[in-house]
């Protein structure tokens, strides 16, 4: 079986694609074409979602939605709706407007538009974009007969298909220390850490207080999609270990696997 690897730069980090095909779809030409298509998809999403790129749709929303309802495409609207549902189900701990006090986003499905009810609101999809990009990459993988794949977005979000992909987890504050080894089988993982060694305080904000979180924790979440894994690793880390375990107990049906470091 042929294996093909390729990486691309997007969302301020590096994405790695490892593919193994089968059923006659394991030649290098095919795997390269699939890997390139995934890379182009990730870059397309970066151009759509980045708040730093002034030509992105997200930048347009952040510029215009305080003064009017901004019409967006159906894909972006669906992603914003998903973020709003995540905000509600996590009791406000996952919030794409965390930096500007949380909430403040009105979505209208009939016109596919978004408007800020708080003029200070700015959306940042940084906590979900990589996971969403991995899931979109997986749609391409599914379409083109790939049976084994590993996609890695900046080493904090990973999604695997087929083979058991061994993953080592480094300690967030002692990068030389491997604290956990797991085999990723048809699941996605996201790991959010309060801070890394170079930071004196966390850049993760509690949306309910707009203050940086104070713990030194790292929260690893395994879920069925990378988007879901990112939503929960962010929300649970922000809640803190104790609140998070109480919150998880209230979820009636959850396929989440959670580990703390």
């Amino acid at each position, binding site marked *: 079986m042929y294996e093909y690897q390729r990486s691309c730069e997007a969302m301020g980090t590096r994405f790695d694609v490892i593919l193994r095909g089968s059923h*006659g779809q394991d*030649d290098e*030409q095919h795997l390269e074409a*699939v890997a390139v298509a995934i890379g182009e998809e990730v870059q397309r999403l970066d151009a759509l979602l980045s708040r730093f790129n*002034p030509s992105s749709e997200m930048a347009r929303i952040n510029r215009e939605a305080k003064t009017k309802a901004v019409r967006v*495409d159906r894909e972006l609207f669906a992603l914003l709706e998903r973020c709003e549902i995540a905000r509600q189900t996590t009791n406000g701990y996952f919030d794409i407007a965390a930096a500007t006090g949380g909430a403040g986003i009105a979505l209208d499905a009939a016109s*596919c538009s978004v408007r800020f009810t708080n003029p200070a609101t700015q959306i940042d999809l940084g906590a979900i974009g990589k996971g969403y990009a991995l899931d979109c990459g997986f749609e391409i993988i599914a379409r083109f007969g790939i049976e084994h794949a590993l996609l890695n977005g900046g080493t904090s979000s990973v999604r695997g298909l087929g083979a058991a992909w061994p993953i080592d987890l480094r300690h967030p504050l002692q990068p030389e220390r491997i604290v956990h080894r797991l085999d990723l089988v048809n699941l996605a993982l996201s790991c959010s850490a309060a801070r890394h060694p170079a930071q004196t305080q966390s850049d993760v904000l509690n949306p309910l207080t707009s203050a940086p979180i104070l713990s030194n924790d790292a929260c690893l979440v395994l879920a069925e999609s990378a988007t879901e894994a990112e939503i929960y690793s962010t929300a649970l880390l922000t809640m803190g270990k104790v609140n998070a375990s109480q919150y998880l107990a209230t979820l009636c049906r959850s396929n989440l696997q959670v580990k703390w470091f």
Partner: protein
Amino acid sequence: MSITRRTFLETAGVTLAASTVLRAEDATIRVAVIGTGGRGSDLLRALTTIDEVTVVGVCDDYPPHLEQGAKYAGPQAKTFSDYRKLLDELKPQAVVIAVPLYLHYKVAVDCLSAGCDVFLEKTMCYTVDEARKLTAQVLASKRVFQVGLQRRANAIYKQAQAMVAAGMIGQVVSIKAQWHRNNSWRRPIPIPKSDANWLKLERKLNWRLYKAYSAGLMAELGSHQMDVANWFLGTHPKRVMASGGIEYFRDGREVYDNISCLYEYELKDAKGQPYTVRANYTSLCNNAYEGATELIMGTKGSLYLTSEKGLLFQEKGTDVVSWEGGKNAADANAAVVTAGKTLKLSNDPWAHRGTPFEIDIAEGNDTRDELVSFVDHVRRQDVKTICDVNVGLTDCATILMANQSVERGSWINFPF
């Protein structure tokens, strides 16, 4: 002339967004999208963000692409596998066409005949003959017509063109443009090679790689950049010599995987003396150094352009020579020398370029902005689009003459 950031941005009045503000009473414009593959989907998604537009229909003869188009367009859009049925049934006011190059002419003509305003992806046509016929038909129809060369809608290129026209880089002496990347330019095929339908689907999805449907790198990539050269120089090239081939991706493709072109433009200088500007164009599929860029070189400076950023490098030695000293010099007219010390210049190989001025005004997305502009022209029934049929014709002839030169191994003159 000393260029400050202020004068730099003030030059030549750049319009950033659409020329008009949308008004609530404006009726929506019924648009259909023909071809919902990669590029068609980009255009379709952008269309759905424009307030005045209702996408009434989408068309593609490849079911997975049609399904994708239907998803992006929304439930109000009807789906078709035959664009003629779409035209008959929906009678859209405007169409956006993003089909393989060899179909551009036929689909565009049918849409014009159905009374539609037309946005046609670049390159305008597969042959110069078709492009000339289409030009005549567009002009006779009085329909709004725009070709998808989106650098014409990009704030950076508009600013750069205004700077060149204002003489800020002096006399343009040479242009170097390239689109280099490192991948096979091949779309994946959803069925294995052993499947009897593989070859058919390969030729359909990878139409860019086969000569019966595509004019290769020049049409798909070079058309954008040679249009920049034509636009900035205000004319078309006089002749071209080009060389290309399949040197690396020997995978059954028929179009070159690399090409190098030397174009000559005949211009007149400020004194009316004729001179030639040479434009070097290259496209590669196996080295991405410096990506997709244009370098416009003038006697006073160089503009280095990409879709996201524009840089102006001033030529050294074209301003007043300033030695060390300045206000500490005993006499303002004296050049200051330092005993026993030679002025040391940096040995950084890029030091000669100096610190550039940045064109950093790229709010807006050129694919969306070209469509905003098109829709605005449709609404006002203004045929003077930002990239009209004559621009499309000149661009088409410019890029096809390079392919012809490769095939003949000789200089090719501009065809008209």
